[in-house]
């Protein structure tokens, strides 16, 4: 088995799950986003998004904060530096794997 394929086994499984990958992509692109925006962008249900965000927060990739914009309550999610680094590393590994498969 080539090194690239061996790398497949070391992929970050927290990010590798499609819903969490979508969340990470949106949070990487935007500086911050609230729960409703993420739900619409990723096409997830409320419960699904909650559980995936909790998993990402637990891994130390995402920070979740409850705040207000005017009178409107917001649950704002931000990608932490560790999350960004992990996401970049994940993408690099996937690229290497993709190249080796082709």
């Amino acid at each position, binding site marked *: 088995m080539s090194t690239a394929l061996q790398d497949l086994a070391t992929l970050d499984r927290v990010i590798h799950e499609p819903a969490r990958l979508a969340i990470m*992509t949106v949070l990487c692109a935007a*500086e911050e986003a609230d729960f*409703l925006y993420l739900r619409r*962008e990723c096409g997830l249900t409320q419960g699904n998004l909650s559980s995936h965000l909790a998993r990402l927060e637990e891994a130390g990739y995402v920070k979740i904060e409850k705040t207000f914009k*005017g009178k409107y309550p917001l649950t704002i999610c931000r990608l932490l530096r560790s999350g960004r680094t992990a996401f970049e590393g994940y*993408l690099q590994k996937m690229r290497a794997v993709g190249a080796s498969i082709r």
Partner: protein
Amino acid sequence: MTNTPQQTEHTMATVSSLSPVLQAERRAWSYWFVDGLSNLLTGALCQLLAGAFLWIAFHPHTRSPLIIGAAGLVLVVYFAVFFRLRQTLEWLKSRITYPRTGYTAAPSFTEDNNAGRQPGLTMLALSSVGERETVQRVKEDLDVKRRTWFFVAVLAAEIISTVLIRNDWICGFAGVAMGVGIWLVTRNDERMSWVVALGLPFAGIYMFIFPTSRPRVMRAGFFLAGTGLVLLFMGAIALVRYLRRNPVARA
């Protein structure tokens, strides 16, 4: 936790293209304008300033404290809104946009927290699709800056020419030239509405009604009023469309 082959295939397809990241970034950026509120507010500011210009134009020799006070009040309101445009928009959005489609901050709006962010995205670009797309992305960024400067320069030239050149056709000519120019540089940019390109010639032609025999300040006032109307029209269309598509989300 294990991944099915379908999951891995889906993930590979996602990662093999840069578009999801860039698309998400562009969507976050354009989200600020999705509800038309920024155009409505800018249009309202134009109308306010036009009102002050026309007020002065129609009362050139009046020294009444009431008129001076009213003109001063208009200017105070104008600058108060102008310098707190972002906060005013946030306030409006917190009542209209965020309850419907949520909140996100585009990267360019949060420079304070942005340290190291752009290199990160560049790295993503490199790692995902290679240098060609990165170069493309940098080119696009430069294009946006160039277009913005072009827009500002043409707008300044238009305002100066309508005030300085005493010719009945100048406003119409400047409006048509600006509309064509803006259409030429923004025809591939989805963020620029067709209403701007069509509206500016309209604003210029609309000023044919006000010949050069009128005071310059009056012509400038009418030009601002025309431009403000275009922006208000554009903002209203976007807002109505947005409200119809996005009823208030239920928790």
